[in-house]
């Protein structure tokens, strides 16, 4: 694990999330966990277990009813919407099941969109986007449009976009949910590779088999953590 001097990439402290209603729906019932820098963690649970809600909390897309979320040592749950947007633009990278690439825009511009709200000049955004695409093995697809790419390639573009700003944490929500098993494997390999290079990655999935290949798995059910398994995997650095 990483040194004590460094703040963890992500820290959840007694996160409770209730949705209003009669009676209120309690999606998360007090979740605490710490993800250190450089970890690759699977958040595993069946649908309805609260893992999507948890992802929203971690990604500052929604606020907890109570509890605290810290990203790279910064407590963010009390920040304004505008400041949270700043946190997302600099500290968090997202990979979605549906890729969410923008049509009518080249691969490189899609990845550069990951830096659009950081205030970097366009030339610099495109330069970094190109190197990010090279990093995920799509250096030969810079000017293609999403509809010219295969599903696996599209998700690679999405991954490139998620890491282009070197976030403190990458949140991948069912990243292989729309891919066949062979392609899924290559995407997981890519995530492992990025992790080996130092990225902190959380993979949210309902796929136990996929989760089994990850060094740490947090099992979630009914809005509560049921188990937190670490395995030592051989990591070559």
């Amino acid at each position: 694990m990483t040194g004590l001097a460094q703040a963890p990439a992500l820290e959840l402290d007694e996160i409770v999330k209730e949705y209003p209603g009669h009676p209120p729906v309690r999606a998360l019932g007090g979740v605490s966990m710490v993800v250190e820098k450089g970890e690759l963690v699977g958040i595993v649970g069946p649908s309805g277990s609260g893992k999507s809600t948890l992802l929203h909390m971690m990604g500052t897309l929604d606020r907890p009813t109570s509890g605290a979320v810290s990203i790279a040592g910064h407590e963010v749950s009390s920040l304004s919407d505008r400041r949270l947007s700043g946190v997302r633009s600099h500290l968090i990278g997202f990979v979605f099941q549906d890729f969410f690439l923008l049509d009518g825009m080249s691969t490189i511009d899609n990845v550069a969109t990951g830096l659009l709200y950081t205030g970097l000049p366009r030339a610099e955004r495109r330069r970094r986007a190109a190197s990010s695409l090279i990093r995920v093995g799509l250096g030969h697809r810079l000017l293609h449009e999403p509809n010219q790419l295969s599903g696996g390639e599209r998700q690679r573009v999405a991954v490139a976009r998620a890491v282009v700003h070197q976030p403190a944490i990458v949140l991948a929500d069912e990243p292989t949910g729309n891919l066949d098993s062979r392609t899924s494997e290559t995407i997981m390999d890519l995530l492992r590779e990025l992790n080996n290079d130092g990225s902190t990655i959380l993979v949210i999935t309902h796929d136990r088999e996929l989760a089994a290949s990850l060094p740490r798995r947090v099992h979630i059910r009914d809005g509560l953590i049921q188990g937190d398994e670490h395995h030592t995997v051989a990591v070559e650095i």
Partner: protein
Amino acid sequence: MRRRSIASGDELGTSRFRISDVARVGVGSLGDRKIRTALSAIGITIGIAAMVAVLGLSESSRADLDAEIEALGTNLLTIQAGSGFGAGDATLPEESVSMVSRIGPVQSASGIVTLDEAVLVNDLVNPLETQGIQAAAVTLDLLDTLNSEVVRGSWLTDATAAWPNVVLGSVAAQRLGIANVDNGQRVLIGDEWFTVIGILDTFPLAADLDRSALIGYEAAATFLDVDLNPSTIQVLSDPARVEAVRPILGATADPESPEEVEVSRPSDALEARAAADSAFTSLFLGLGAVALLVGGIGIANVMVIAVMERRNEIGLRRALGATRAHIRRQFLSEALMLSFLGGAAGVGLGSLVTVVYARTQDWKVVLPPEALFGGFAAAVLIGAVAGLYPAMRAAKMAPTEALRS
């Protein structure tokens, strides 16, 4: 657990959305949906084009009318006898023309004596079928007063005015079937034959003279044996003093019953036409405004649909760090660009219509800058208003909601 609470966002980094990026994203989004962009901008285009064309054409036709009025002069005044009750075919005193001529600012005054005699092309036609052609005895300076000229033959001179010679107004010549004056063509006025020696150009300010056969005072007295009391006097005044001359003409022409004398300014009729044109202009402007309103609603409609369709894009952008304000800015800028495009096309189209139509009418092309800029500004304003609600809606969307597939 280690936790640092942060007082300022600098450490975390803030979201920015550069203006150049706003523009680029907007252009990109509209470019991806070219047909829809064109269709939704069309309403604004039609509205602005209508307004620009209406203003341009009314200005052009007005300029034309103004030029016409300018050319004809606004200093011609007409004195007419006998508008009073029971006045019948009243006339002015014989000396009225010379009286009027003596008013200082009057440059010239020409009497017109209307004659009862029919004007016929020969003695075989029914004397009652006069075709609306009237005989009149006139003074020789009439042509100068009315600033007109002959198109065929010649005007009356001291010599020809004393003999049975006639000059025909343009309409009279046409109705009598007389096109040239070289072959000694004669017409019958009353019981006397008169030789046609000239045909006049039209009198824009005295249309009744177009339908007249004009003879000299002396010939009228000699051959037709009539009194030479003018029924009408055409007066050309110093242009700067028209308003001063006008009120005293009645009393000068007929001191005994000035109230029965009617003084008018023929160019007023043209001015009235210009005013009527501008009434139509208001109507068309109103129609243009309706088109513009419909165009604005069209843009609002398209933008609302775009916001719903692009829910995922909004969610993605929020996840990538866009603030609510950034999302609002993006959609507002798209609406503005739509209306900008529509407005620019409308101004272009409206100008084109104005130029083409004005050319076919031989008008001087006038494109009032206030119509061009006003039309453009109206388009952009409408875009801003139309885009506001959809943009707010997009901005309010919760990221978690927007990211749901």
